[in-house]
Structures are given as structure tokens and as C-alpha cells.
């Protein structure tokens, strides 16, 4: 690692999992004890000061979100951890859960205390069978040692935590779809408002936070919001972040760097060793597959929320997919679009029908049967999906189509005019 402070990544190994390691090497469960000595408002205040922003994709300030929970509620309040990690290109939460599960558990205890919830759920994607088991073992350990359950560490605060497995549906990463799935229903997004903070799980006020977000909380409570905020290099973004890099780089994997501390070029070339086989860079998908694509000329951008927004894309879940010059971008976009067509829940017509139409058009372009008017039609469909659906899946499907066609139009035209992939 380079010379900066990291919170997570040095603990990503099998030895870090037991409670004993967490207590001895990471100051485990001292943060929750400290939080119990603070008022709920003070805990939320520290998290606000930390400039921790949601690590799941939307980047919403965590402290502000917690502040939306009503103090009084007739119905029980819930804290739900979104461990669905299903945005293609994203693979960071899995390592937190399998290597340092107690950090997540403690983050949830603190979050539960801050919002006045006594029941937490970790909604984990169904495929992470092993991680779910490891989390359950860690939760058992925490119960046995008084870090979960009744009267935690003699504080008088009770908090129960349950692991709930999904069953294979990308859409369940969307928080209201996740809540429906938790309730034993189809994972279809809900109409908002009401927002989960008003009426979420089982009708009670609910906060949904990503794994990495909640795992950052013990550090914030122990070392202060200001300290955490200063780990980040941009004013509004506190802490370090886990960046997942995959695709055509020499060293794919996770990198933990200060929020806003690197450009995309530095991440790809300095940290990941550059492009596989020393080929030329063709394209970068910066924040999970729904983030609009960037060309090789656009990577001198600070890799954080606002700088990426400024150039028309997004940080999302910070999963970077790198593509070298010899891979067909038409094929790539077709694959991405096929995914969204497969995962559309079907509630909203523009998304249900439009994603399938876009996939069909892209398939024929990829296979050399594209028509002259196809690109205009593709963009027209994407425009008609964008912003016209209940949840963000529609936008997630439209964004890649619009950006790929705009930035790599020559590649698409070559397929249509030449009747085959020019690289083949």
C-alpha cells in the first residue's frame, strides 16, 4: 500500500474474522460503548461532521439520512444493511463481511442506537452463501459476549440482528425493492413517497445503509467526525473509499484510497499497473455498469462524486471496469443492456419493454444485421426510458446506451455499414 491511512484493507484476511482479533487488533466494540455514553443526537452529529456519504451508489450524506428518522414512532423502527452488492463491477462489501464481520455488526449497533431501532437486518444477496454463514457465526459470537441482544455492554440498549438472504434479483439492491423482499414479497420497488424513513420495513420508519457505510461508523465514533472527514481530500467527501477495479488491468482488485484522493488515471495506471498486455485503453466504466462510459481521454478526472458528475457520469459504487482497445464496445454494451433487460422487474412499461427493445437492436447491430436507422431508434428508446420509471433501473439501462453510442459512434456505424465487427 502507499503511504496513507487505510481503515479496512489491511484487515482483509482470514485471520481477522474472529471476535478476538476484532477486540485486540481493531479496538472492537469500544466505539459502541462510547456511543452509549453519548446522546442519540450527538452520535448523529458526529456522523454528520464526518462527511460520510453512502457507499452503495447514491452518495447521500449518512448523518442527514439518520436525521430523517422521527424521534417518536408508534411502529418499531428498523435499521437495514443493504448487502445486496449486485451492481456489476462491485465487489467490496463481500470482503468486509467475510473478513471483518464484527466491524459491520458494531456499525449496526451504533446506527440502531442513534436512530432508536432495536431490530436490524442484513439483507445479503443470495449468492453470498458463505458470507451469510460467516456473518451468522460472527453474530452468534457477538450475542454470546454481550455485544448484541439485551442490555448491550450494560448500557440498557437492546439490539437484535438477523441475516436475511436474497435469492437472485439485481433490483433488490434498490432500497424499497429490498424492503419488499425482506417482507417476503416480490422485489418490486415502491412508489415514493413515503420514503423508508417515514414508512419502510413492515411499515415502520427504516434506514437502509450500505455495508461499507455502516462499517465506517465505528471509526467515526472512536476517532471523531472531524478526523474522518479529513481523511477525504474533497470538502464534502469524508473518509477513505474502497475502489474495485476489474477488467483489463494488470492488477485487478480492491484499493482503499482517500475519498477524492486520486484521479481515474492514477487509479488505473499507478495503482493497478496499467492495461493488461500494455495495450491501449479504450473505455472505462467508472461506477458500476450503470455509470455512463468514459473514453481514454476523459480519465484525468478526480475520482469522486462531484468531479464525475461534472463530466456526465457517476461514482456510483466505485466499481471501475476497464476495457482495452481490442475489445468490441458494441459487444460490451449489448451485454450490459441484456443484463438490465433481464433484471427489469416489469412494473414500469418504459423499462420492461424498452430494455428488451434496446437489447434486440443491439444484438442485431453486434451480429452485423443493424440498419441505418437503428442508432436513432436506440437513442429514442433510451430517452423514453430515462426518468420515466419508479426506480433508477430505467436510468441505469438508458445511461450506458446513450453514452456508448455518443462516445463510440464510429464503432457502432462500422458494425452497421460493414455488416460485422471491424475488429473480428
Amino acid at each position, binding site marked *: 500500500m502507499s503511504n496513507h491511512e487505510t481503515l479496512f484493507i489491511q484487515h482483509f484476511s482470514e485471520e481477522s474474522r474472529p471476535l478476538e482479533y476484532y477486540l485486540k487488533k481493531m479496538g472492537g466494540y469500544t466505539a459502541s460503548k462510547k456511543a452509549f455514553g453519548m446522546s442519540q443526537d450527538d452520535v448523529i452529529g458526529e456522523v454528520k461532521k464526518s462527511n460520510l456519504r453512502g457507499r452503495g451508489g447514491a452518495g447521500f450524506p449518512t448523518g442527514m439520512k439518520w436525521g430523517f428518522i422521527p424521534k417518536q414512532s408508534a411502529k418499531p423502527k428498523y435499521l437495514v444493511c443493504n448487502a445486496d452488492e449486485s451492481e456489476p463491477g462491485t465487489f467490496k462489501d463481500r470482503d468486509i463481511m467475510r473478513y471483518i464481520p464484527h466491524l459491520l455488526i458494531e456499525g449496526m449497533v451504533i446506527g440502531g442506537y442513534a436512530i432508536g431501532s432495536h431490530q436490524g437486518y442484513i439483507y445479503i444477496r443470495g*449468492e453470498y452463501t458463505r458470507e451469510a454463514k460467516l456473518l451468522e457465526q460472527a453474530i452468534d459470537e457477538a450475542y454470546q459476549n454481550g455485544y448484541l441482544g439485551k442490555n448491550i455492554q450494560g448500557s440498557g440498549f437492546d439490539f437484535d440482528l438477523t441475516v436475511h438472504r*436474497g435469492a*437472485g434479483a439485481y433490483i433488490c439492491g434498490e432500497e424499497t425493492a429490498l424492503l419488499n423482499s425482506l*417482507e*417476503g*414479497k416480490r422485489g418490486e420497488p415502491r412508489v415514493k413517497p413515503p420514503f423508508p424513513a417515514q414508512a419502510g420495513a413492515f411499515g415502520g420508519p427504516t434506514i437502509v445503509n450500505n455495508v461499507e457505510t455502516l462499517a465506517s461508523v465505528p471509526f467515526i465514533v472512536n476517532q471523531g467526525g472531524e478526523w474522518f472527514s479529513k481523511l477525504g481530500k474533497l470538502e464534502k467527501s469524508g473518509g477513505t473509499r474502497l475502489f474495485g477495479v476489474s477488467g483489463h488491468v494488470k492488477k485487478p482488485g480492491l484499493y482503499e484510497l482517500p475519498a477524492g484522493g486520486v484521479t481515474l488515471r492514477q487509479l488505473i495506471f499507478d495503482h493497478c499497473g496499467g492495461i493488461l498486455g500494455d495495450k491501449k485503453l479504450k473505455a472505462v466504466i467508472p461506477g458500476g455498469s450503470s455509470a455512463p462510459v468514459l473514453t481514454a481521454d476523459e480519465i484525468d478526472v478526480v475520482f469522486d462524486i462531484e468531479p464525475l458528475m461534472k463530466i456526465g457520469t457517476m461514482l456510483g459504487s466505485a466499481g471501475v471496469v476497464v476495457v482495452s482497445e481490442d475489445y468490441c464496445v458494441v459487444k460490451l454494451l449489448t451485454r450490459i443492456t441484456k443484463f438490465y433487460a433481464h433484471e427489469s422487474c416489469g412494473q414500469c412499461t418504459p423499462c420492461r419493454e424498452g430494455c428488451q427493445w434496446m437489447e434486440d437492436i443491439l444484438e442485431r447491430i453486434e451480429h452485423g444485421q443493424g440498419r441505418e436507422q437503428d442508432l436513432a431508434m436506440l437513442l429514442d428508446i433510451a430517452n423514453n426510458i430515462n426518468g420515466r420509471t419508479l426506480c433508477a433501473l430505467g436510468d441505469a439501462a438508458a445511461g450506458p446506451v446513450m453514452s456508448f453510442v455518443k462516445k463510440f459512434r464510429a464503432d457502432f456505424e462500422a458494425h452497421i455499414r460493414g455488416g460485422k465487427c471491424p475488429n473480428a
Partner: protein
Amino acid sequence: MSNQLLSKSFYERMAKLEPRYPTKQALLLPALHAAQDELGWLSPEVLEEVGEYIGIHPAQVREVASFYTMYNLKPVGKYHLKICTNVACCLRGADELVEHCEKKLGIQCGETTQDRKFTLMEEECLGACGTAPAMMLNNGYYENLDMTKLDKLMDSLE
């Protein structure tokens, strides 16, 4: 129910989980997982039994079960291969792995071999993009795959 398909341990597991949720329907996903772990797939009879336990109509069970890709509503082979072909895995050669498996097993994606030993499927992103290409074999992950590793793995399965 007279002809119970689900074991005593299934009902014990569910009874333990029940107090953790404010509604019984919240047990539906855990119940379907547990039923599939026991029986390998979810037949109409199993869906009916799960519905009876939860207290909902079998059609409501099917409505939910069919929404999620992990629930097998048809029987699958002893070894269920699910190869991720999403972006990161594609960029690292997942398509070739699928093609190789199809040839080796003599079936197309989505099919099961006649001896019911293998079911082959394409999978959406498994969240293992840094170690692509990746696949699942039943409930386990296999990562950083290549043709040789995949062959070795498949040949080791009895």
C-alpha cells in the same frame, strides 16, 4: 398436511426464525431457501406446503418464488454450474468458458445432462469482478478461472 415433504428440521429452523420477524410472510424467502436446500428444487407440492406453513395461497408463493433466479422451479442436476458472463467476467474470457462447458457436457446453457449430473447456466454478476472470471458450483464460488482450472474441477466431480 398428510404427506409432508419437508423434514422436522425444516420446521424447527423456521420456528427459531419466527420471532425475528414481525410478520410470518417475512419467513417466505428463508423458507424457500431451506426447502430447496433439503430437496434440491421447489416442486408445486413443496410450494404448497410452504404456503400452508406461512398461511398464504400457493399462488402467492409461486408469485414470489418465480421472481428470484436462485429458486429452482425445475429439477437441476447434482452439480449446478453457474458461470458469470456479466461485464467483468466477459472481459476476462467467460464466454469461452461457457462455450467450453457446452461442448464438454453436450448441452446448451439452461439445460441439464441426461444423467442429471450437470446443469449449466449463465449467471449475472456474482460480485467477484476482481477475481474474474467467476462461477458458482452449487453454493460455492470458484474464481480466477481458466480452461485448465475449470476442466480440473469438473473432472474431479463424481
